């Protein structure tokens, strides 16, 4: 049977290989593969990068993009202290109510509030962005096939001039990695867009890497807990499987002994 299994997989691989070769050409450039800190079995988030990335998000992206699934209190998880979280929240106003008179009112945000969206609704967001809708960024790295690699490539993939012969529509920008290359988002990150509190040099690459890691965290905040638990569970199951194997083999030995007795 082994012979069949091997030739089966060999022929399948061959078919896949040939047709993939035939069809590989013609696609948009693949985002370069980056070794993110959070990748791999033991990968964890780079906390300093998350804090810097938050600053980039807050100072650059937040003016156009919402971050609906993140509450101020969640910032505790990336290393902000409760006092800092209170201060950050207090910079924002959120609508509350109705009060005893039945009126809605504005108050400063508390840690339990969710990140306020920059626009009241989708229509307002489109109106302010030339008809294009800036998507919510909470899950952006999970909703793209290439994930963080794509986001980083997108942020660093702008060109001042489209290549010769490319027709760029009005109010659109050329990007190497956006599908179709025309994107309605102007290049958001430039050299020194943000002055980092921790003094890190704010190159385009640095800013993009940091905000990408921050957005990877907003998409998958339980990543570290998941991998930590996973290791324990898998070690337990491996030991349990080994024990079960021994028990199974010992039990079946009895059957064999019966045969030889006959």
């Amino acid at each position, binding site marked *: 049977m082994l012979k069949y299994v091997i030739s089966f997989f060999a022929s399948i691989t061959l078919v896949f290989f040939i047709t993939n070769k035939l069809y590989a050409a013609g696609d948009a450039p693949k985002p370069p593969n980056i070794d993110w800190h959070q990748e791999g079995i033991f990968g964890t988030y780079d906390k300093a990068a998350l804090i810097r990335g938050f600053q980039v998000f807050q100072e650059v992206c937040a003016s156009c993009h919402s971050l609906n699934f993140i509450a101020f209190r969640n910032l505790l998880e990336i290393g902000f202290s409760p006092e800092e979280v209170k201060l950050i929240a207090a910079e924002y106003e959120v609508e509350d109510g109705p009060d005893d008179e039945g009126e809605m009112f504005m108050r400063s945000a508390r840690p339990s509030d969710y990140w306020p969206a920059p626009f009241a609704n989708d229509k307002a967001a489109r109106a302010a962005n030339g008809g294009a809708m800036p998507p919510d960024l909470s899950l952006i790295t999970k909703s793209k096939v290439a994930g963080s690699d794509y986001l980083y490539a997108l942020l660093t993939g702008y060109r001042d001039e489209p290549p010769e012969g490319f027709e760029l529509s009005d109010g659109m920008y050329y990007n190497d990695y956006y599908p179709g290359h025309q994107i309605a988002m102007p290049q958001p990150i430039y050299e020194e867009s943000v002055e980092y509190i921790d003094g890190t040099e704010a190159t385009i690459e640095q800013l993009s890497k940091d905000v990408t890691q921050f957005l990877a965290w907003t998409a998958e905040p339980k990543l570290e807990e998941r991998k930590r638990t996973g290791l324990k569970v898998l070690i337990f199951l491996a030991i349990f499987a080994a024990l079960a194997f021994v028990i199974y083999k010992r039990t079946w030995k009895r059957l064999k002994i019966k045969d*030889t007795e006959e």
Partner: protein
Amino acid sequence: MSTPVPQNKVVQWIEYRLPVFSWAIAHGVDYPAPRNLNYWWTFGSMAMIMLVAQIVTGVLLSMHYTAHVDHAFDSVEHIMRDVEWGWLLRYAHANGASMFFVVVYVHIFRALYYGSYKAPREILWWFGIMLLLLMMATAFLGYVLPWGQMSFWGATVITNLFSAIPWIGGDLVVWLWGGFSVDNPTLNRFFSLHYLLPFVMCGMVFLHLWALHHRKSNNPLGIDIKSPKDTMPFSPYCTTKDLFTGTVMLFVLFVFVFYLPNTLGEAVNYEKANPLQTPAHIVPEWYFLPFYAILRSVPDKLGGVIAMAAAILILFVLPWLDTSKVRSARFRPIYKQLFWVFLADCVVLGWIGAMPAEGVYIVIGRICTIYYFAHFILIMPLLGRFEKTLPLPESIHQSILDKSLKSKTGNIS
């Protein structure tokens, strides 16, 4: 030799009124299984583990899930972020569906290889196919629940297939939707049915096992049990083996749950459903891909739907299409090879299902679709007539004795 019911007073009190203990012992301990069962016979119990796991995680997820178009997506994210161990429940349930299909597909191909569908196991085989159909329905309905882009558009594409039915198609689709498009009423009924069908499956598993225990398991030699010497009691022999392979399966499942939780899913399903924006490619989950490829291989919509349905329904008549008297592929030299060709055909169909329907892919898809049906309609009936089968061993027990004799004298042949 049957194991006695424990002498404990409570046990005896119950046993006198309802013989659950002797029943459980007869079916879970004393059940005579063929001595020569190999690892492929452990996938049935793995499928049972997965059914239970899906029900347990599903019931817990339902406690936090909201079946409403405005809240479904957010409630799943709430499970992922705020519910204690919610991320684990959801990843276990989503990847559990894939694991379930893996073990069930292996289970089915095992039956195809060893001829387990042949007399006297046709009804047992029918229940198995019905379980597959129920499982597909359940997984499709469940995939709609998180209300992401692929949930919505997958539901739209698949429900629209019913519109191909002549005369009543249009009305039928409106009736299925509960409106004029996939919308809140659709999501609500899908949740209701997604909760219901797994319990129907439990009943079907019962019937499946009833038929199995009535005519007993097939085995790698495909010959009947002739004497008690050919069998072993289910416990401890099958139970210890199933415990081992079940644990290995859980290990594989948890590798995905903890380290590759989104690898098998579609990225765009993390975008909330948007009826105004169609995703670039609409692809079903991997376990539907071969059938999706068959659907798209037929240029006509109704024809495609019929072909896709026929791809599964043809399994119901397989016991009569296969004319060979010999069950196991071990003694069918040609079928043994064509089995792997058929499996390869299904894998290639699965890969075609994931590719855009254009150029070379359409051609490969059509060839594989034709081969898929040819395997059942042409190869199986003819092969049974013309194939020279090898001599069958006298009995299961004898073949075990021969084997151990061979290994002792050193394999001379």
